[in-house]
């Protein structure tokens, strides 16, 4: 919901129902990064109300459009976070699997060596 004025659409407040600091703080950060914004802030009018007010004032562009751009950008950034994170986890898992395989290989080699040595020792006894 938007509370603005008919004559000047560069200043407006928005009420988001069923949202809290989680979204509002991130949106406020995005708005503050936008050079068109002169003021951006949010408040939760009362702790028992499940809503948050976001205030946007711009240098001239419609506040609604600026807020929309902020949300859009936030969404794209999230997508980027997800793809980078997924890639990092996948790489980590591949690396772990490789290390584990190497470890097993080494164990196997060790066991093989032990077996050979035992065999050698038993042969010695026979020889004597």
């Amino acid at each position: 919901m938007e509370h603005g004025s008919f004559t000047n659409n560069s200043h407006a407040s928005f009420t988001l129902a069923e949202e809290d600091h989680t979204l509002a703080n991130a949106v406020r950060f995005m708005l503050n990064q936008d050079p068109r914004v002169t003021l951006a802030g949010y408040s939760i009018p009362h702790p028992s109300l499940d809503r948050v007010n976001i205030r946007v004032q711009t240098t001239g562009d419609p506040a609604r459009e600026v807020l929309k751009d902020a949300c859009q950008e936030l969404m794209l950034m999230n997508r980027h976070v997800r793809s980078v994170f997924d890639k990092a986890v996948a790489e980590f898992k591949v690396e772990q699997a490789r290390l584990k395989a190497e470890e097993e290989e080494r164990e196997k080699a060790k066991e093989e060596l032990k077996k050979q040595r035992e065999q050698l020792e038993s042969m010695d006894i026979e020889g004597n």
Partner: protein
Amino acid sequence: MVTEEDKIFAKNFNIDQLPDVPAGLPPHLKLKQSRVVPKNVAPLNTDSAIYSGGYVTTGGEESVKVESFYENFKVDVISCTETDIEFDMVGIDSSFANAFRRILIAEVPSMAIEKVLIANNTSLVIDEVLAHRIGLIPIAVDPRLFEYLSENDQPNEKNTIVFKLHVKCPKGESRLKVLTSELQWLPNGSEFLKEAKGSNAKPKTYTSFSCSQDSLPEFADNPITLSHLDILIAKLSPGQEIELEAHAVKGIGKTHAKWSPVGTAWYRMLPEVVLKGEVEDELAERLVKACPQKVFDIEDMGNGGKRATVAQPRKCTLCKECVRDDELVDFVDLRSVKDHFIYNIESTGSLPPDVLFTEAVKILENKCERVLAALS
């Protein structure tokens, strides 16, 4: 005489481009912008979201952070097991890190026991306490396979999981511990019959499953269990008995903490420990001794002297124990890096922690989408 060349030079002249004019922020401002300094009264320079143009006069403008974000954002996984993950998230604002944390704790869905139908309980644990204890048991099942049970819905195989618990401590035996391993999954739904209204109506149970859950492909060879089979629910004396059914539904941690899919999720900024000058000999040993986290180490110099080094700055908890010493305070600088987060997630077993994180990011995306839809 002013030549044509001079005119062009004057037109293109920009003082910032002269080779001996430093570019960007001066170091002391850079430090303010990128580091938090823990002080005894309160941490300094904690703010991160300066408004665009905050540093424009000094040339260190970073309002285009959004663009640099796509190049600079990095994730580095430190460790990842089935239940825990630790990773570094670099080049992101704290408002994001905190949003993900809040969502992980309160808004990523999971399954938890919501209704407990008690047929018999002669144990010392009273019904409501028992029901509460059972509600908090984590269930190892992917919540994405289920739907929310809304108020007018009938509990069915798509939104409810039913467990049965029937234990009795026989007379003449020693006390019995009731563990979560006694909870038995009922893929066919409730076995308790509702009181029939008409005498000839077919008796109904408390759920209306149209098919057995273990006939569904996702559970066919992977039966639903609890995350931990060794949680103590109650203790029974000889002759006591508990018979109940527990119905689990999907929900989020905002409603009740039992639906939180994480034991906890937390982050901290990367600590940075800097020695301002050489800390040598006796002082070096004092520094090493002062730190409970063993951040510092001693290095032997060639001439038999000793020098302190910062061996493991990551271990620093910013306890400030080292700067309590009147002499050491002049040598040690403690800071935390504002855009480097050490992130930890502990899953309760419903989903692996890395999946939980991607789910959390998706939820934040959906929130943005909702706002966008409402605005256009």
